[in-house]
Every structure is written in structure tokens, then in C-alpha cells.
């Protein structure tokens, strides 16, 4: 055996021995460190290669990305429009469901739902315009409600629309009674849209939170429709009556759909009222 073949044999034996030891798990920590260095190096090269590849192929991708981006933006705007539309439908459905619940819980009345389409152009007056009119059997004087309470009454009617005087209108006066103390009073509207209570007897103790309902007196409204709750009371000894401010049950700034009570006919009691003596 010459020296070259001896050298080769020794190298094979050494390498084979190292492999055998390695496979036998004797070089565990050293092989882990080695492989970890290898992985780091490979990761570095791989990431640089991907970066370089992106750089080289960028122009083509930007065009396709822009196209894709435009498509996605278009889809997003369409979906946003759909979301808004669906939210509106959900709101309408919630309102209608509440109104249906209200009509079911008050089966003595018949109702006609109407959408609020406008308000009086003058800031002095608190009126709304609804999209139901005489073609839907809406008549002047019919009460208008929501599931929360009384809204007002029909003031004028045309074929497909009607004007409703809100109970917040300065010219509005509704006969009411305070449920807890069982006494009558009158609810007046105002310029600001607030409702105040007047004509409360001085003998009655009114408290904040007392519920106010329509009394039905005068024939203008059916009885037991909710108006609101007493907030503050003003009682002065030298005045004939007490006054109170009301928190209305209805949010008049957000009226969207209302119910017209179509089976109620207001009673005109004017001929029965005594004439003023000369």
C-alpha cells in the first residue's frame, strides 16, 4: 500500500467516523449550532434573492397591482354602499318592528304607517309632512303616533301627502292627565320645541318622573297615549296653577316613520262651548 492510498483510507475513516458519531448523536449541540448558522445564511441569501427578484419583476407587478387595487377599491366602494343601504334597511325594519309591536299591543285602533318626507319651511312652526294622504283614507284631525307616544295630529291633507301639527308646535295644546296623581292638565308646545305643562291644580303634589298621558278630553285625541314625563315643577303660591316641564317620550328631531290612527274621528265641541257674555 503506497502512501497516497493510505492517506485516502485515513481520510475516509476519519470522515466516516465523524458521520457515524454524528448519526449516533454524539455531536448534537455542535450540529445544531452548525445547522442554525446554515439556516441563517440560507435565509439571508433567500431574502436577498426575493428582494432582487421583486426589484427586477416590479414594473410588471405594479401594473397588475394597480389594476387589482382599482378593482378592489371599486368592490370596497360597492360594498360600502351596500352596507349603508343595508344599515338603512335595518333601521327601517327596527322602526317598523317597534311600530308593529305597538299596533299589536293596541288592537283597538287601526293604523296607517307613513314616512316623514319634510318639515315646515318656517322655523316658527313645528309641522312635518308625511307621504300618506286622502288616497289612503287620511283625514284632518287624525292623531299621529309612534311606538314611543303621541306625535301630533293631521292638520291638512292632499291626495298623497298630509301635514301634521306636532305637539311641540307653539300653537298646540293637548289635554292630558298625570297618571300618578290622577289629575288633568294641558300640555303646550313652544318655540324651542319643548313641551310644558300648565293648568295643574295647586292642591296636587306633582313629582319629577310622573307619567303624562292624553286624557281624551275635548275629543281631539284618544285617551291614554303617552306624552312624556315630568322633569321640573314650578309652583308659586300667588299663581292659580302649577307649571311643569316635560321630557317628551318621542324624539321629534329623529322622526322617520309614524303611524296615523285612522279609526279615530276628532269631535268638534266648539258648538257646545258657551259663548262669551257681552
Amino acid at each position, binding site marked *: 500500500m503506497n502512501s497516497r492510498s493510505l492517506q485516502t483510507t485515513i481520510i475516509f475513516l476519519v470522515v466516516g467516523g465523524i458521520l457515524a458519531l454524528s448519526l449516533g448523536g454524539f455531536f448534537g449541540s455542535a450540529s445544531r449550532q452548525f445547522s442554525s448558522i446554515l439556516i441563517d445564511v440560507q435565509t439571508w441569501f433567500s431574502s436577498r434573492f426575493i428582494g432582487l427578484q421583486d426589484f427586477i419583476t416590479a414594473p410588471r407587478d405594479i401594473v397588475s397591482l394597480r389594476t387589482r387595487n382599482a378593482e378592489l377599491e371599486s368592490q370596497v366602494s360597492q360594498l360600502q354602499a351596500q352596507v349603508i343601504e343595508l344599515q338603512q334597511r335595518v333601521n327601517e325594519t327596527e322602526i317598523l318592528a317597534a311600530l308593529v309591536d305597538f299596533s299589536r299591543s293596541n288592537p283597538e285602533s287601526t293604523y296607517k304607517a307613513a314616512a316623514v*318626507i*319634510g*318639515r*315646515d*319651511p*318656517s*322655523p*316658527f*312652526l313645528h*309641522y312635518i*309632512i308625511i307621504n300618506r294622504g286622502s288616497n289612503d283614507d287620511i283625514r284632518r284631525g287624525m292623531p299621529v303616533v309612534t311606538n314611543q307616544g303621541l306625535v301630533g295630529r293631521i*292638520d*291638512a291633507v292632499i291626495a298623497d301627502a298630509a*301635514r301634521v*301639527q306636532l305637539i311641540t308646535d*307653539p*300653537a298646540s295644546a293637548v289635554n292630558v292627565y298625570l297618571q300618578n296623581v290622577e289629575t288633568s292638565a294641558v300640555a*303646550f308646545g*313652544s*318655540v*324651542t*320645541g319643548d313641551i310644558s305643562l300648565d293648568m295643574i291644580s295647586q292642591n296636587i303634589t306633582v313629582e319629577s318622573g310622573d307619567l303624562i298621558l292624553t286624557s281624551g278630553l275635548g275629543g281631539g285625541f284618544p285617551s291614554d297615549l303617552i306624552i312624556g314625563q315630568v322633569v321640573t315643577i314650578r309652583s308659586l303660591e300667588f299663581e292659580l296653577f302649577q307649571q311643569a316641564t316635560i321630557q317628551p317620550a318621542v324624539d321629534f*328631531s329623529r322622526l322617520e316613520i309614524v303611524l296615523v290612527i285612522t279609526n279615530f274621528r276628532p269631535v268638534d265641541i266648539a258648538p257646545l262651548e258657551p259663548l262669551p257674555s257681552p
Partner: protein
Amino acid sequence: MRNIIAFPLLGLAVILQSAIISQVKLISGYADLPLLMLAAWALQERVKSAWHWAALVCVMIGFISSMPWPVVTIGYLAVIFVAQTLQKRVWQAPLLAMFSVIFIGTLFIHLLSFVVLRVLGTPFAFADVIGLITLPSLLLNMLFSIPVYSLMRDLARWVYPLEEHE
């Protein structure tokens, strides 16, 4: 012939007033778009149809509003009168004229509304009306008067082209 634009334009203005502007409140007041458009229209030198436009607005507002029609009629016609009077005197400062007409017109219409509604039995307090309705409405009218004036000036140039005017 182009004056026919008054029908859709003023109809749209009244619809916008009822559906949108009346819900954009400052305290309890809001802007009066038909008033602004009429004032700006009447202040245009070449316009000859301001009274017709005012009559149309009176009919439309009188139809949908619960305000007694004499208030609407007298109010808007008075605005045209004031605008045309001022237009002849301060024609070199159209925006100043616009502000003046809006100021006088808003105060006059609100005063007239207040008096008539009081006579008819609506319990208003004068201080409440001034503080809660008139002053906020006046402010909003003033704010909107500049864009509305620009719009109506361009419209007047289209309705009354210079060749036809001369």
C-alpha cells in the same frame, strides 16, 4: 324662454328647504333658501323676471307651509322690492347689497310672522323669537348668501345672455 328654469329650480329649492335645510338647525333657526335665491336673483342687473319668480315661490311655500299665505306673499314680495331698490343704488357693491337685502328681508319676514301668529293666538315671547329663531336664522342666511349669490349670478348670465340683453 330660459326663464322656465324657474319652475324646476325653485321647486327643488322648496323641496330642499322642507326636506334638508329645515333639519339643519342653529338653536331653533334655520336658513331660508328660497329667500336667498330670490334676493340674489332680484339683485342681478339684467334680470327682469324677479317678481314672477317671487310669485312662484309664494305659491309653492304657501302650499306646503302652515304659515298664513299673506305672510309668505307679503314677505317675499317685499324682499324683491328691497332688492330692486338697493340694486339701483348700490349696484357697484353687489355683495354688500346682498347682505343688506338678506338682513332686512329676514328681519321683516320674521317680524311679520311673529305679529301675524301672535294675532292668530299663538303664544310667542318676543325675546324668545329674537334670540332663538331670528338671530340664528339671520346668521345662517348671511353665511349662505355668498355661494347662493354666485350661483344666481351665473344663472342670470345663462338666462339673459349679453347679446339678448343688448
